[in-house]
């Protein structure tokens, strides 16, 4: 097959108050997998939206095979064979339609012509054919809303390739996935590249890029930094230095901090529907306790049960006193804070400004006796948080919906860091956050620990728990299966226990590159 080249030249995009792209060049060859990296807010998504026709007001030129083309609308882009899977998977799926309908959505919309009747048999057959081609196992009759995130993603990719697709853009597809699922995704992506599709792959997990990408483009502050082949010689730290524009050695040294008396003690916690079972654990003052486990191990459920979202049995003691948490409101009152996993859905008020989001869980700090808000104080502290977390926003008054994906995440984390809780529960706090900002976040988490707060840190990124947690609990199938102290365990062992002590081989290859 001929190599087809897609080129973008001197692309500029401007939003009110923000120059998101400033003279960016980018090129993509069919059949290759091309990594696109950059710090949060660097302009990756914006650049890709230009290709996908979602930023119709760009200036600059786009060429396919040397021919100038216009990607001013999603329809134009689709006709050119450019497809995108956005960062927010759920926004693109229609939850109450079946998998078959979701996969064939575009053709149902665009290629019906004068036909008025839907041929269900044909739709199901074509959908099955596409899924078979990708070699993914999803029931075509299931409803989209019943699928796991990973499967939803597959459905969307299937939708993209069901049409004539020449270029496929994946915006942070691996952020919510665990290792096994990531491997599955890689397999599909490699197969598609073999078919001759050019693929853009955005990710903040730089290590995984070496596995599947041949080329890398690095962006910073809306500008192109460099574009080069991705080989082993190009070190992660070098990439990060390009991204951040400053020195980076990749090593995070955990600060020692004094661990005090037990703060939270949990005994035999069982969720009513059995999503978490017989949980016993404790958190001491100043301690960061990791909860490691694969996606689906019950980490989120544990976090939410602790926070009173699900009804449960068992005993919880905070500072030696028994607490009963029937709902999140009581949890907050008792001194808990939860950074939820699905932040867009459960964390941010997208239509509100950044400062209002940061203060909403700590209103007590900003109000006087008669509930009047001290807006000045509110904004000053919001600005401080924006600085501490490096949230990229034109001002504290910007609407959160207009921030980049990673910066929205930071706002949610900032909201809870700002609250005056005793026990902080972090559920995948670094999801979608760039490497530089991760370290800022670790520092803030440690700072709170140093003040004598307790932290529960749930994640499927084992590297993270290994580097900042004082103790680690491993979860599998809704139960805690193992406990380790800092420095006592390797990533390999964590993986062993988090797969139920069975399949250490299946995921070995991922290990080596990590």
């Amino acid at each position, binding site marked *: 097959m001929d190599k087809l080249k897609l080129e973008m030249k001197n692309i500029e995009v401007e939003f009110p108050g923000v120059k998101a792209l400033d003279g960016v060049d980018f090129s993509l060859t069919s059949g290759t997998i091309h990594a696109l990296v950059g710090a949060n807010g660097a302009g990756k998504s914006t650049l890709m939206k230009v290709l996908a026709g979602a930023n119709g007001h760009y200036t600059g030129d786009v060429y396919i095979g040397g021919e100038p083309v216009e990607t001013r609308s999603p329809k134009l882009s689709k006709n050119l064979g450019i497809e995108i899977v956005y960062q927010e998977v759920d926004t693109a799926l229609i939850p109450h339609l079946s998998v078959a309908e979701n996969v064939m959505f575009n053709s149902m919309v665009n290629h019906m012509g004068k036909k008025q009747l839907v041929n269900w048999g044909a739709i199901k057959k074509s959908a099955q054919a596409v899924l078979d081609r990708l070699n993914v196992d999803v029931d075509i009759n299931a409803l989209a809303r019943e699928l796991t995130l990973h499967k939803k993603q597959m459905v969307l990719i299937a939708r993209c390739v069901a049409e004539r697709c020449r270029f496929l853009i994946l915006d942070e597809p691996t952020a919510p996935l665990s290792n096994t699922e990531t491997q599955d995704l890689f397999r599909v992506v490699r197969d598609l590249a073999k078919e001759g599709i050019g693929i853009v792959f955005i990710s903040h997990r730089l290590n995984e890029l070496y596995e599947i990408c041949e080329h890398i483009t690095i962006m910073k502050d809306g500008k192109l930094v460099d574009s080069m082949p991705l080989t082993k010689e190009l070190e992660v730290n070098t990439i990060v230095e390009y991204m951040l524009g400053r020195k980076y050695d990749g090593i995070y040294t955990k600060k020692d901090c004094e661990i005090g008396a037990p703060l939270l003690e949990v005994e035999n916690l069982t969720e009513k529907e059995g999503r978490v079972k017989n949980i016993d654990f404790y958190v001491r003052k100043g301690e960061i306790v990791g909860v490691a486990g694969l996606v689906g191990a019950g980490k989120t459920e544990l976090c939410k049960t602790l926070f009173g979202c699900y009804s449960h049995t068992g005993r919880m003691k905070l500072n030696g006193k028994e607490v009963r948490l029937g709902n999140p409101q009581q949890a907050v009152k008792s001194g808990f804070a939860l950074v939820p996993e699905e932040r867009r859905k459960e964390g941010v*008020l997208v239509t509100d400004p950044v400062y*209002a989001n940061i203060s*909403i869980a700590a209103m007590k700090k900003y109000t006087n006796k008669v509930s009047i808000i001290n807006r000045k104080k509110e904004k000053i502290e919001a600005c401080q948080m924006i600085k501490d977390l490096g949230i990229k926003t034109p001002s504290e008054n910007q609407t959160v919906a207009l921030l980049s994906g990673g910066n929205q995440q930071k706002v949610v984390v900032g909201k809870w860091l700002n609250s005056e809780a005793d026990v902080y529960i972090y559920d995948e706090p670094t999801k979608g956050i760039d490497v530089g900002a991760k370290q800022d976040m670790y520092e803030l988490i440690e700072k709170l620990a140093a003040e004598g707060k307790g932290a529960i840190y749930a994640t499927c990124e084992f590297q993270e728990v290994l580097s900042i947690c004082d103790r680690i609990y491993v979860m599998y199938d809704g139960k805690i299966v193992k406990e380790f102290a800092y420095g006592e365990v390797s990533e390999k062992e964590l993986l062993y226990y988090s797969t139920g002590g069975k399949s250490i081989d299946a995921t070995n290859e991922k290990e080596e590159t990590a």
Partner: protein
Amino acid sequence: MQQTKKRKQLKISSWITKWGTLVTILLLLLVFTFGNWNSDTGSSIFLTTTNVITVLRSISITTIIAIGLTYALAVDGMDLSIGACAQWASTFIMTMFIWYDLNMWIAIVLTIIVCLTVAAVNSLLIILFKIPDMIASLSVMFIFQGVALTYSRGGAITERMVRPDGTQAPGLVSEQFRALGGEPWLIIIMLCVVAIAMFILGYTKHGRYMYAVGGNKEAAKLSGIPVEKYKILAYFLSATFAAIGGISLAARIGTAQVQAGDAFLMPSVSAAFIGFSVLGAGKANAFGTLMGAVLMGVLQNGLIMLGVPFYMMNIVIGTVLAIALALTYVARK
């Protein structure tokens, strides 16, 4: 070249989004001022103190009721029972005076309390039974339209009427009460209601919480906000102001006419929704609601002065509204 043009377009469109509604009001004022120009006196009969007061008075009741709705909209709710609630209030308070000859202040307090039953039923259906707010409040609307009619035996409540038991009603509507429905009191009440709402929604914790509930219920819940409590509060505020609107209506006409309150539903809903767009707020807000009511009021008043026949009125009002809203929303992404 092309770029600066683009940038300019961007600026203009965001400017229109922000100011569209207010510009429309201004344009209407200009049109009506010069449309009603009297060349003999060299002045306009539209822009006189009396007429300005007339407009303000005419929008007062709509605004008061619409402010109540603004609270419900702030929590992303909807309350279609406000018109019925106003009607129920005006009927009830009139009977307090006319049938039972009650003291004014006692009657007012009693009426507001009685009208909170509307909120209670709304809350029950929407929060406990989880019926979607639009249909829940629609059924509540029917219920209380019926309650008001049944209570008054299907007729108006007027002074010296014959009571259902056949005796003549003893009470009169006091001058003191009637004054509440005329200027300056009605206008003062309206401005107070708006100012209080601006204050609560914009400057207190409770307002912030209501908007948070309206913006993202799940996030609000996980932030420790008692979501349901604030929803219930919003419906109670909505009913309270609908009741105050109904009481003002009774004070203004001195009787309780069948379905007079129901007629305020649509103008109030319009005013509150127009309010979303004022100054680019993007959500229900008190100042916006006031401006929405002003837009409707000016329009109605000006058209009457220009001699537009009543049967054509709604065509013009609807069209101007559509244009004002289009100006605001078309530029939005």
